[in-house]
């Protein structure tokens, strides 16, 4: 599950003085041998023929809707990743070093989430909980009811729980992987337990989990179109609506795939940038 797009990349050491400047030109040439130029040209020709010979006249009409869907997709992605991560930290901690009465439920939660399809979880929450709630008058009367009648809270809840389940497992490994000596020396300094967690344990665990987190964020992006099945209008559901309205088979889907590719690229780039912020030494 871990490294989506995780092409192994050799870390280039930062040079204080640019000694190897002449190498850059040759590396460009080695990246673009003749066959790759031909492949790129074929790719460009495919894109150009798609742009020229396929029908794109629906684009201006649905432009606003597409942007709205894009915004909804990104919003759901960011919210669920952040909330899911916040939930994953206690889940991982409980499994890594918690007492049994916390560790066992945390492990059970992660197993159930990871063992069932997200679509079933989503439908269980939306149709299952959604059909139970109206039977209780106190829920109908509460101030939350206007939100509980909409679809997006269920989508956010399901995706958050799913991300927390997968990420809790990752954080368990990350917490367990922090060298014992680090925690012992922090204790020897007389740090209180929460300070140890905040200053030593959590930052090192996050650093360890960061490459996996990037992969999981891409996986989370790839699960967002499922929310379209419970009537949340995201990028995917806009594309299906265009398909229904215009009877076009390929164009909306190709645009959709391209959109997800771009978002994936942005996520990978952002995480790479965050990873570079943290100084690391390969031992």
């Amino acid at each position, binding site marked *: 599950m871990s490294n989506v797009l995780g092409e192994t990349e050799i870390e280039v050491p930062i040079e204080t003085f640019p000694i190897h400047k002449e190498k850059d030109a040759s590396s460009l040439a080695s990246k673009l041998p003749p066959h*790759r130029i031909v492949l790129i040209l074929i790719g460009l020709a495919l894109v150009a023929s798609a742009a020229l010979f396929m029908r794109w006249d629906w684009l201006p009409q649905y432009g606003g809707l597409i942007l709205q869907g894009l915004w909804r997709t990104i919003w759901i992605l960011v919210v669920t990743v952040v909330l899911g991560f916040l939930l994953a930290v206690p889940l991982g901690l409980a499994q890594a070093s918690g007492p049994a009465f916390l560790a066992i439920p945390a492990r059970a939660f992660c197993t159930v989430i990871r063992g069932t399809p997200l679509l079933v979880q989503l439908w269980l929450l939306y149709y299952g909980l*959604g059909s139970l709630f109206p039977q209780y008058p106190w829920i109908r009367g509460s101030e939350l009811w206007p939100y509980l009648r909409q679809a997006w809270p269920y989508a956010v809840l399901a995706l958050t729980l799913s991300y927390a389940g997968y990420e809790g497992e990752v954080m368990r490994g990350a917490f367990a992987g922090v060298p014992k000596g680090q925690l012992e020396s922090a204790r020897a300094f007389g740090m209180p337990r929460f300070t140890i967690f905040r200053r030593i344990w959590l930052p090192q665990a996050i650093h360890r989990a960061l490459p996996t987190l990037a992969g999981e964020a891409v996986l989370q992006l790839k699960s967002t179109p499922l929310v379209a099945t419970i009537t949340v209008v995201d990028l995917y559901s806009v594309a*299906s609506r265009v398909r229904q309205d215009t009877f076009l088979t390929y164009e909306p889907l190709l645009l959709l795939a391209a959109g997800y590719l771009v978002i994936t690229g942005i996520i990978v780039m952002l995480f790479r940038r965050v990873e570079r912020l943290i100084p690391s030494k390969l031992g």
Partner: protein
Amino acid sequence: MADASIIPAGITGMFDLLSPVAPGWGANLLRGLVRSLQIAFGAFGMGLIIGTFGSYAKLYGGPIARDLAAIYTTLVRAIPELVMIILLYYAGTDLINRILEGMGYQRVDISGLVAGIVVLGFVQGAYATEVLRGAIKAIPQGEIEAARAYGMSPVLMMRRITLPAMLPHALPGLANLWLISTKDTALLAVVGFSELTLETRQAAGTTKAYMTFYLAAGALYLFVTLFSSVILESVEKRARRGMPSVKEAR
């Protein structure tokens, strides 16, 4: 007042709904489960075949094969499975029929089972390519060089050296892929293939007992996952026999 009709009266009502004989919907769920498992098996197998070719193309292929394999794995792993399924399921069948018509043949109805296996197998293939590539690279390369020095043909070398030697390295990743494959079958419900999730949805929609059926479906998926992880663990233990334990090495 609505309680009695909407919530099945307690546990007995739940079991009545889930019983495998006529008034219950258990038989439908089990039929869906069997279909899901068929697709999962087929897709996993097809993914293994694609993955073997893909990893060989990435490791030993010429420059063009290498780049094409890289494009395949990057694209498939970046585009959501649901979009891939819709794209290949509708557009793929449409494309095949257009080609057939263009060549003067009749349109064919592609069965949901075959289409599901091909679509999910195509997605699985990309992940399997990466898993197998990593596993082949984890073999001590001297073994492959020695096989080449003995003059083994590539096929013989693959059968006798590469595949057996990479198996222990590939099994954890492949186990993960199998679990993903069983769960991804649920996505075929969106294109109307009646596997476990769609059967559940129909049963739940008809009886209005949403909680009961979705919980039952979740339990079935969970059972498949847990059961296969037990089996996969013992397979991995057998494949790793005689090798130093990973845990002790850390």
